[in-house]
């Protein structure tokens, strides 16, 4: 299944224009990590606009990569290409060394989970939302499994709650738990805190960090907040007009465990 490729030990600078603004502060054992996700000349153009332009980047297993840039820079468009919610017009993505077009979309999206800017919960109970992903593969989650996930995201006893009664922060926690129920290898986060107040945003951020650390997950997070990127990411990539212009080691927090 896995075709992991050893990576370079030096800071990874994949584009000619990239400026290394700081020395690599990633823990030394990153070098020994395999590549979880690699984009190769990834591009997407719609009728009259190039959204993502020729992006090649490698994300190592267990690494947190932040994607920053101005509005309209193509951050979310880039993220949506990673789990194939949109189709690349050129280039591809390798997941564990395998071209993701060779993986059935449903299986690919189980392996690459995504939390969106808005929670987009399905009408019904919190438990129903959490069990949704496994149910698509005809797997039934036990009450204990659902409770354990809710405990982990800080919502004990919420399984019977109707989603319409949740606050924005609670809904986003359920959204995270719903994605985690699929046991993804890679977690994509599309500005998961941007619609929340400061306190809820910090809570979600800490929760995400904790979960990533526990599960040794690979994570790509889109954020407009450079400070947030610095707090949680190992490296940050800067996009402008769909183009990768810089890769900066940030490494504010170690996720190596």
């Amino acid at each position, binding site marked *: 299944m896995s075709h992991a490729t050893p990576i370079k030990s030096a800071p990874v600078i994949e584009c000619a224009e990239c400026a290394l603004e700081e020395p690599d502060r990633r823990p030394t054992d990153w070098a020994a990590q395999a590549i979880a996700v690699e984009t190769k000349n990834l591009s997407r153009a719609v009728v009259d606009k190039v959204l993502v332009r020729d992006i090649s980047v490698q994300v190592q297993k267990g690494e947190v990569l932040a994607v920053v840039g*101005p*509005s309209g820079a193509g951050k979310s468009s880039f993220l949506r290409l990673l789990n194939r919610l949109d189709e690349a017009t050129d280039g591809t993505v390798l997941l564990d060394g395998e071209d993701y077009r060779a993986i059935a979309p*449903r299986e690919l999206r189980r392996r690459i989970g*995504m939390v*969106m800017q*808005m929670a*987009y919960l399905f009408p019904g109970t919190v438990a129903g939302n959490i069990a949704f992903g496994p149910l698509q593969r005809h797997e039934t989650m036990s009450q204990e499994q659902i409770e354990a996930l809710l405990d982990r995201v800080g919502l004990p006893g919420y399984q019977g709650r109707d989603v319409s009664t949740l606050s924005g922060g609670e809904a986003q926690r359920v959204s995270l738990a719903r994605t985690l129920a699929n046991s993804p290898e890679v977690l994509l986060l599309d500005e998961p805190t941007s619609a929340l107040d400061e306190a809820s945003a910090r809570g979600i951020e800490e929760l995400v960090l904790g979960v990533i650390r526990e599960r040794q997950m690979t994570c790509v997070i889109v954020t*407009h907040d450079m400070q947030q990127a610095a707090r949680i990411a190992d490296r940050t990539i800067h996009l402008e007009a769909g183009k990768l212009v810089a890769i900066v080691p940030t490494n504010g927090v170690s996720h190596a465990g």
Partner: protein
Amino acid sequence: MAQAAGAVTLCLAVVLICRRFVVHVERETMLSLVRGLVQMVFVGMVLALLLHGNALVGILILLAMTFAAAVTASRRAQGLKDALLLCFYAIAAGAGVVIAGMLAIGTLSPAIAILVPVGSMIIANAMNACAQSIERFSSDVTAHVGQIEAGLALGAEPAVTVAPYVQSAVYASLLPRLDMLKSLGLVWIPGVMAGMMVSGASPIYAGIYQFILVAMILAASGIAGLLVTLFIRKRAFSAAAQLTLRPREPHKPKHASVDAQ
């Protein structure tokens, strides 16, 4: 002609009353009256010429009507590939199954003077059901893109993510026909029944025949609405399970502000 003149006079009187209340519909009413009269005289002439044709001629006329209905219904599905063809298939299947069934059990005579008017009623209702299904499904899907993509992102089949919108689209297309059936005889006495009674048929027989006709209209509409929704559901996603039926993007300024800190 005197009767037509009487009907026109009554309409003109209403136009004058409207004008008194500063509602100006003079031009539109005149145009509609002239157009309606000319069209109906023309259709009458065509039918009079074809009256002695065989069932094959009748079927060809119904096919032409089905095509015209598909053109009208497909206008609700702009941007969807092969919309005209999909609407044609759905209307042809809905109306075709019902008309064939009625012919087979003898409810409908193959005589062109009966086949074409009754068939046209069934086709027209299948067309409306088709258009209503498309409209409802498209608007529901484009209003719930986030939720649908959340489902896709969790590994759901495309059909699962839009299942509630398929249900509501088919239901919405059937609702007017269900209301029609419920109010039959209580709120309105349809034209076929009225016509049969005027031409001397038994009111009970005319009533039963009208009921059969409305029930068949419901069946044809159900088939057409369901089929077109299923066809469009398939077209709403790419082969890689990506949602392609989306609202048109609003125009954005070329140089957006920088919000990175």
